[in-house]
């Protein structure tokens, strides 16, 4: 009979090994899934994980890697701070949308002025503010009325989606777009465009912001009192209160930071790769970032690596879609499986497996 025995402390070695193990198991299970869909599993896995990095057309895909990883990392870093403290902001998708709307609205308000030094920084601030304010709704409801932040932040995603549609069809619609929904293309407005910084790398300001966020989060958690309080609250809320942590302030801080970072990600996306506010602007980064945060073990460096890996599944998935006719939904299911397997093998971190005969209880 297999028994689990709780470890006195989570195993360090396993906490590094489990994400890798989870990825390997997901590749195997994903291969089986692809085989059921009538595709060659080895070719599919190679198309997703190998070709975009080292294959024949890698020069094209490599640039895409940072474009996709940037927003994922930026959002996941914010989420991880809250998750560590047991504060569950799962509405990053909504905050991402609101950041994009706020930022784009500021940029479009200045059209066609050319003062980039003024307009772009203002857009960045507006984007962060949009996400921040949207995250403050669940945060304040939580601290003031003790309302469940999971449900409120998630329900606000649907509200934000409707708001996005109304903006794309109404206030932010391109006046020269002959009535089509969607805003002006910010890519074609130099003062507001989030351009590629180094040609061919996919490096734009959002990616820079993501790297800064990784470093800042690392310093915060390692060296700062606030980071200590976050970790303490996650591990023992009661002890944290005795140590003088003010839980409400921590909720406001964690929700606010994650909202602002998600808003930034939205702004950089709308001013860069996406280009315009449109009805289907959001593409689920806010939800995939949850997987990124967990796969990265809520650790800044881990999130950096996990973000790159999930970005790879996005572009590899697109390649597999084009070359093998693998349905887009297969990649979505694949990403979901990854989180499942990660959570399953995580048991090895916290428990020891013992083989032993059953005794009469």
């Amino acid at each position, binding site marked *: 009979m297999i028994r689990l025995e709780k470890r006195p402390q989570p195993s360090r070695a396993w906490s590094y090994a489990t994400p890798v193990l989870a990825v390997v198991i997901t590749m195997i299970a994903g291969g089986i899934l692809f085989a059921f*869909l009538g595709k060659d599993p080895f070719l599919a896995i190679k198309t997703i994980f190998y070709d975009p990095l080292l294959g024949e057309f890698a020069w094209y895909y490599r640039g895409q890697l940072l474009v996709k990883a940037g927003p994922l990392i930026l959002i996941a870093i914010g989420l991880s701070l809250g998750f560590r403290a047991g504060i569950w902001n799962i509405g990053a998708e909504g905050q991402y949308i609101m950041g994009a709307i706020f930022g784009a609205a500021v940029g479009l308000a200045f059209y066609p002025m050319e003062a980039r030094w003024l307009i772009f920084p203002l857009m960045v601030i507006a984007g962060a503010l949009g996400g921040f304010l949207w995250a403050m709704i669940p945060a304040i409801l939580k601290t003031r009325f003790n309302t469940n932040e999971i449900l409120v932040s998630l329900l606000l995603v649907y*509200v934000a989606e409707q708001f996005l549609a*109304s903006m794309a069809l109404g206030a932010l619609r391109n006046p020269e777009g002959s009535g089509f929904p969607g805003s002006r293309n910010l890519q074609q407005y130099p003062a507001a465009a989030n351009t590629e910084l180094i040609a061919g790398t996919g490096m734009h300001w959002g990616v820079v912001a993501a790297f800064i966020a990784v470093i800042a989060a690392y310093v915060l958690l390692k060296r700062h009192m606030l980071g200590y309080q976050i970790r303490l609250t996650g591990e023992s809320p009661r002890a944290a209160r005795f140590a003088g942590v003010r839980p409400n302030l921590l909720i406001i801080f964690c929700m606010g930071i994650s909202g602002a970072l998600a808003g930034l990600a939205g702004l950089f996306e709308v001013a860069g790769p996406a280009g315009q506010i449109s009805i289907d602007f959001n593409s689920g980064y806010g939800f995939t970032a949850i997987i990124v945060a967990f796969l990265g073990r809520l650790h800044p460096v881990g999130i950096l690596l996990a973000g790159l890996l999930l970005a790879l599944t996005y572009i590899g998935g697109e390649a597999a879609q084009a070359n093998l006719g693998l349905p887009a939904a*297969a990649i979505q299911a694949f990403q979901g499986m990854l989180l499942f397997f990660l*959570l399953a093998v995580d048991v090895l971190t916290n428990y020891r497996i013992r083989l032993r005969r059953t005794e009469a209880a």
Partner: protein
Amino acid sequence: MDLSAINPAVLLASLMVASTPILLAAIGELIVEKSGVLNLGVEGMMITGAICGFAIAVQTGSPALGFVGAAAGGALLSMTFGVLTQFFLSNQVATGLALTLFGLGLSALLGQGYVGIKPPPVGDINLGPLADLPFIGRVLFQHDAMVYFSLLLVAAVWAFLKYTRAGLILRAVGESHDAAHALGYKVVWVRLMAIAFGGACAGLGGAYLSLVRVPQWTEGMTAGAGWIALAIVVFGSWKPWRVLIGAYLFGGVTVLQLNLQAAGLAVPVEYLSMSPYLITILVLVIMSSGRGRAALNAPASLGRSFHASS
């Protein structure tokens, strides 16, 4: 705007139809939470049920088989959550989210060949003279079997929790799993059964959406219904009849805003479509703030993993 176009009898009748999917999912989640498990994967199980039911109904031509398949599909998917949280002791919040993300992907994958197809129609059951009653007949007695099934299910869950020994064990497990374990109850198995029941109910709710309410299959068609079901369990403070009221209240808001859209109210459609979500949030706030005190009624072991140390 022409409010006279809104017929109150039709409005109330469609309220019952609009509420049924959420009621089914919420009553299932109520049992799950009563056993001390927080399954945030309702949305994922609902949409999986929606496509399982739709596909089976289209293939066999029988909506009844579709509903059975949807319940089986939802229960099967919920078992991944059950195994992970009960045997692998994973975090319930994270696992529930994983279930939703996976369910959305899986359903899109399964549903590829079913976009734009019409499912076999689900007929109303014949209640004879009752259906011919003025007003009340139209509102209450001209529905399909699932509407009545969902109401019976609420009554059954209520009676189960209140009057049966098994219901008492379920509640004991949810209030204090350590005490229940010490009394010799199989905490893990009780919870697994509860999770499977919740999955089956969510699957039925999803199939009701795709087979009756819409009726069509589109990706992501549940549009947050699973999350609203979770909110309604809190709103109902874990009591079956209050969950019924919550689901019907929500259904009322949905139907009313749809009717106002049709009547041409001078508010953009998008803002009307937001209203069900906003009202759900508002209700959550009222219930969880000081005077509502819903949290006091929550099962004491809700969301905590159980690991028998000896």
